[in-house]
């Protein structure tokens, strides 16, 4: 029982990442009709916003410590971050330590600007092109973004730790009456899950309860009619692309402490997120979220030693297996609308 609870928890945080990326993908597909293979790269860019802010906060002045030497035997250059010089070691140190949460504020304008630039500079020329063309151009864009990041940050993962307050684990087992230490879960993963729930709730509320959201939903249903009513739907869709980029970016920012960011991390999530979108139903926001969590949990269970020993290799194919079954039995996905990507 404790193993099952633990794998459900694991699935929830993994599903959070899938759901957030799939949500952005669905927003773009639902509004612009574009299959965006660069979405994983936007997730990666978000994580590198956290890396960048951490690097900026660590920019340091150098002083020579003659009592110590570096690896070449020269006097050691001691670095003192500027923020510690300006605000004192306590406040400056806290700013560096809390760089990941602070990076949320840092990432929003950057990701929005990146989103607008991509949509206006590239994607808009492909609205009326075949999905295959869209996939090719956005996949190419993803590779370009990856290589840019690798050029500046290198290929190795860059550790970007969570604040000390969130290191360590929460003992769920104690809460549920199990022995201590049986069901423990890292605090930051709980934060990630809560953050994902907040973002998902925020996007749904935005679309459901604002005039802007209402127009976007109308545009998703019938773009032509909304345009005939004199509403500039294109501008709103550009904004939606920026919002989708922000959602992916913020998912990346908060993911940075879970696994050290590297230039390739977007690709690792991209294919799985597309499967999530297809399983959830192309164009269905609730479907994307539900499928994200469902597949995250299934993947966790499939990785259990007992399951793998019964069905070797199941951990590597479970998501694709589910996708095949869903597509065979319900081609439009779990919550997909009739007519979307059909025929």
């Amino acid at each position: 029982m404790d193993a099952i609870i633990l794998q459900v928890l694991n699935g929830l945080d993994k599903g959070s990442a899938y759901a957030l990326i799939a949500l952005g993908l669905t927003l773009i597909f639902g509004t612009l009709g574009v299959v965006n293979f660069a979405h994983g790269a936007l997730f990666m860019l978000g994580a590198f916003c956290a890396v960048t802010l951490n690097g900026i906060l660590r920019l340091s002045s150098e002083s020579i410590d003659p009592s110590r030497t570096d690896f070449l035997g020269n006097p050691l250059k001691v670095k003192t971050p500027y923020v510690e010089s300006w605000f004192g070691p306590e406040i400056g140190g806290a700013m560096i330590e809390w760089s990941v949460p602070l990076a949320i504020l840092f990432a929003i304008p950057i990701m929005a600007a990146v989103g607008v630039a991509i949509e206006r500079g590239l994607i808009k020329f492909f609205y009326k092109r075949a999905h295959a063309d869209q996939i090719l151009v956005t996949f190419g864009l993803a590779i370009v973004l990856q290589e840019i990041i690798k050029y500046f940050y290198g290929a190795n993962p860059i550790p970007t730790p969570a604040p000390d307050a969130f290191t360590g684990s929460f003992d769920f087992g104690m809460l549920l009456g199990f022995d201590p230490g049986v069901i423990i879960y890292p605090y930051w993963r709980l934060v990630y899950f809560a953050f994902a729930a907040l973002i998902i709730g925020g996007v749904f509320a935005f679309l459901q309860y604002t005039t802007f959201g209402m127009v976007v939903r109308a545009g998703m249903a019938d773009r032509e009619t909304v345009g005939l009513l004199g509403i500039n739907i294109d501008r709103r869709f550009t904004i939606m692309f920026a919002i989708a980029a922000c959602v992916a970016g913020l998912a990346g920012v908060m993911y940075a402490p879970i696994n050290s960011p590297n230039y390739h991390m977007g690709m690792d999530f991209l294919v799985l997120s597309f499967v999530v979108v297809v399983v959830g139903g192309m164009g269905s926001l609730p479907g994307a979220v539900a499928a994200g969590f469902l597949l995250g949990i299934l993947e966790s269970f499939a990785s259990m030693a007992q399951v793998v020993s019964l069905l070797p290799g199941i951990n590597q194919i479970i998501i694709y297996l589910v996708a095949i079954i869903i597509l065979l039995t319900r081609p439009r996905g779990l919550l997909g609308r009739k007519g979307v990507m059909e025929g």
Partner: protein
Amino acid sequence: MIKRPISRRSLIKTAGAAGVGLAAPHVLIRNAHAFTNEPTGSTVTLGFNVPQTGPYADEGADELRAYELAVEHLNGGGDGGMLGTFSSKALKGNGILGKKVEYVTGDTQTKSDAARASAKSMIEKDGAVMITGGSSSGVAVAVQALCQEAGVIFMAGLTHSNDTTGKDKKANGFRHFFNSYMSGAALAPVLKNAYGTDRKAYHLTADYNWGYTTEEAVRSSTEAMGWETVEAVKTPLAQTDFSSYIAPVLQSDADVLVLNHYGGNMVNSLTNAVQFGLRDRVVNGKNFEIVVPLYSRLMAKGAGANVKGIFGSTNWHWSLEDEGSVAFVQSFGKKYGFPPSQAAHTCYVQALLYADAVERAGSFNPCAVVEALEGFEFDGLGNGPTLYRADDHQCFKDVLVVKGKENPTSEFDLLEIVEVTPVAQVTYPPDHPQFAGGQLGSCNPGT
């Protein structure tokens, strides 16, 4: 028109002359190129096949820096680096056999097929007489086989799987880097001293060749000293989040987690294990411990503070204080501004060893080079007295057991050496079961 009758004698003469004439180019070519890519001008071309793209690109970049430094030193530039400390004095800093060393590079992408294609291109188009480099055992085994077929020497870069000099060994291939068996043999006594003999180990193993041989090596050496292996789980190579593999460790009664992972796998699995509080656990009345059999400073950097206090093994470390290591670190550090990685070290040493073997053999012929390297004993290249064993073309030398440093003084100061395991302790017979299968075969000069 007068018709001359053709006599039997003149027919034989004509046919003989024509035969000689037709055969001559082949004889001349064979004499001109007694082996693949025999250097005929004033230069010799070496092929550096390293990952320039993909997840190990940083390690590949460090390998390339080391090769460029080696070429500089071989041609008489710079401070000479390890040429001054190398026990063999055959190299004079005037190239190899008086020919200036030039090089071409290929990108392995850490993919076997891409690595073979780039090595093939360097051999066939650029005339490389030797191929070296790489950051993966899969790549090393693939390129080694290609070099054997093509008739050029392969000096392996970073490859740790037993198979490279085990079941996949080839006469034209040589490995300076240590292997999985040696990691297990070096680590076991240190782990015994630190954690005792009554331990239960849980292995997470990358699901590919290197992972299998490392798990086998560490299991056999730790089980031999009394540890019990409670579970060994294969993890997909492409796995990024290891939480679902870490969670079952909590349910088991294991008190040690062995991460048979390298590169990004190691960074992520170690980070996840620490996040799940494994290092804070007490199981069976003992502190829970994590072991990483193969450490790399470049990878340790990716895992950040999570490496603190964790044991592993490494082929070489820049903090070694022997004459050769100091000369190399000074040379590399002054040129590039940071200390070399173990990948850089092994690649630099391999380039020097090849050049030295050619000088001693007096020929670039791969068979002469093989003969010069087989059974070659040397010192002054950073690992103490070393033997290139003739039976399997594996270098035998001391192995370093390291630990993640608790209080690093710089971004490079991540690992501390806890023991230099003497070569005798990591030496095994050529027919050891972990290296069974495969034949070295005979050298192939190509052409």
